[in-house]
């Protein structure tokens, strides 16, 4: 049981990361990652919706008829998105204005639909909730890294406007990396998000290749010690 939860967590965070591997939910990912604060805002909203929808879908998985499951999932997701939208409007109004259309559009985020159909509708509640949480965190981390890259390159700052989420005390978190920065519009515009995303995926593949290479080396060295002394020369 424990290994199953471990696998779910690792899948969500790394092996089957919704942004880096499944490449789902790219539209909000590319559109709102202009700064760290936007990334965190959308990331948290998406994570909450994911957990809620996975929980509900898993709870009713035996009652939902196969033929109409997708419309039902959409309605469940839409209900959570509406709740999140109202909550953001109430507590983080400025951020709500910045993220704009991309909050209602969480409904159409394929990552959420995909998890509901592929995982939550086939698994018990605890596993589904954990899956939602881990997929959400995996998605949010990618959003934050991309947001940080684009904020540094595009505006020369990091963690600006954090008070929109974390209250007035967070206003001082802003780090100005380059004084009098002229701005690098390309990074702030959508093309910069595509290039940044490509670099992130490349970095993940590179790390995976390194890990695989290392595992093979260990396996080879074990094979050499256990096998006979015959050496194969090619």
């Amino acid at each position, binding site marked *: 049981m424990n290994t199953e939860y471990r696998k779910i967590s690792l899948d969500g965070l790394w092996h089957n990361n919704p942004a880096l591997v499944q490449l789902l939910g790219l539209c909000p990912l590319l559109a709102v990652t202009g700064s760290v604060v936007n990334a965190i805002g959308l990331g948290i909203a998406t994570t909450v919706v994911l957990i809620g929808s996975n929980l509900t879908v898993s709870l009713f998985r035996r009652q939902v008829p196969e033929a109409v499951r997708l419309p039902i999932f959409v309605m469940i997701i839409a209900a959570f998105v509406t709740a999140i939208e109202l909550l953001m409007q109430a507590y983080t109004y400025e951020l709500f204005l910045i993220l704009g259309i991309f909050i209602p559009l969480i409904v159409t985020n394929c990552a959420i639909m995909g998890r509901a159909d592929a995982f939550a509708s086939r698994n018990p509640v605890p596993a589904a909730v954990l899956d939602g949480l881990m997929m959400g965190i995996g998605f949010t981390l990618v959003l934050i890294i991309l947001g940080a890259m684009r904020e540094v390159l595009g505006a020369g700052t990091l963690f600006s406007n954090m008070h929109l989420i974390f209250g007035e005390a967070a206003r001082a978190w802003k780090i100005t990396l380059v004084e009098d920065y002229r701005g*690098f*519009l*390309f990074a702030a515009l959508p093309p910069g998000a595509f290039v940044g995303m490509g670099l992130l995926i490349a970095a993940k593949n590179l790390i995976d290749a390194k890990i695989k290479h290392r595992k093979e080396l260990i396996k080879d060295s074990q094979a050499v010690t256990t096998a006979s002394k015959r050496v194969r020369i090619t």
Partner: protein
Amino acid sequence: MSLIHLSSPHVSKANATDRVMRLVLIATLPALIALTIFFGWGSLIQVLLACTSALAFEAACLWMRKRPMLFFLRDGSALVTAVLIALAIPPFAPWWVVVIGTFTAIVIAKHLYGGLGNNPFNPAMVAYALLLISFPAEMTQWNAPFVLIGDNWSVLASFTDSLVIIFSSINHGMIDAYTGATPLEVLKHRGGMTTEEVWRNNPVLSQGVFAWYGISAAWLMGGIFLIYRKVFTWHAPFAMITTLFLLSSLFYAGDPSNFADPFLHIGVGATMMCAFFIATDPVSGATSNKGKVIFGIGVGALIYIIRTWGSYPDAAAFAILLMNLSAPFIDHYTQPRSYGHARANRGIGGGK
């Protein structure tokens, strides 16, 4: 034994990459000289800066990719990219503009796609488009040609003063004294005047336009030299310039007060450079002669459309990038019949 992998075409010594690149570099000399005569030392400094930084980025990429360094550094392709970027940007742009440009061209547009021969887009134009989008202020600050700026010319004519302008970060007050709009910008932002009135009232066109004609003529000279030395064929440049000329003639004949005349379209902006030095790129352009003609027509038409109805005054980089994107498609439909086959393997179902 390590075998160096080279991409097609696998032809014998006659057109080796280093020879082609050396000829292209020689062919850019007239343009460099013309730019220096009309606009001051800026271009020469940009070329030196671009070549140094491009070679450094190229060496770093080759080292990281574990490719034979000297072999690829000597082929001169990085230098050609660097020189084209340097000659395309405003002569007195700050130093970091050209360095970011060569970084984009060499690292992002070339090596991330697999190095020379594997890049789907022309590296110099990727860099130019990125710079134009990212730094609109710096990238539109062309200084006016010497005839228009009078006494201020002494600054641009001095090599050390030019160095100061490019390498000091605070030069905006200083540079305002001798910057001016390019002819295409003047036509774009003319505020209700007819084309004829712009020609009469704006010194950039009435007195200064010959400077831009001179630079285009220099690019044309370099291009004809390269066709003469059989570095590329006439198809793409001819198709591009003819299309641009015919389209602009058509609209100019219909409404001469609103549209620019065809000679202006051919003679100013990046037309000539684009036609002979960018549209002829063997890697990112179309391959067959018929394909090159289609490629050229596409570039010419797009340049006219974006210049006339788009929001940017010049359009060479965007037109080239859009056509680079279509080049594999064009190749797919223009593949020539190969020897021994009755029909060409082209279009849908080709290769079966």
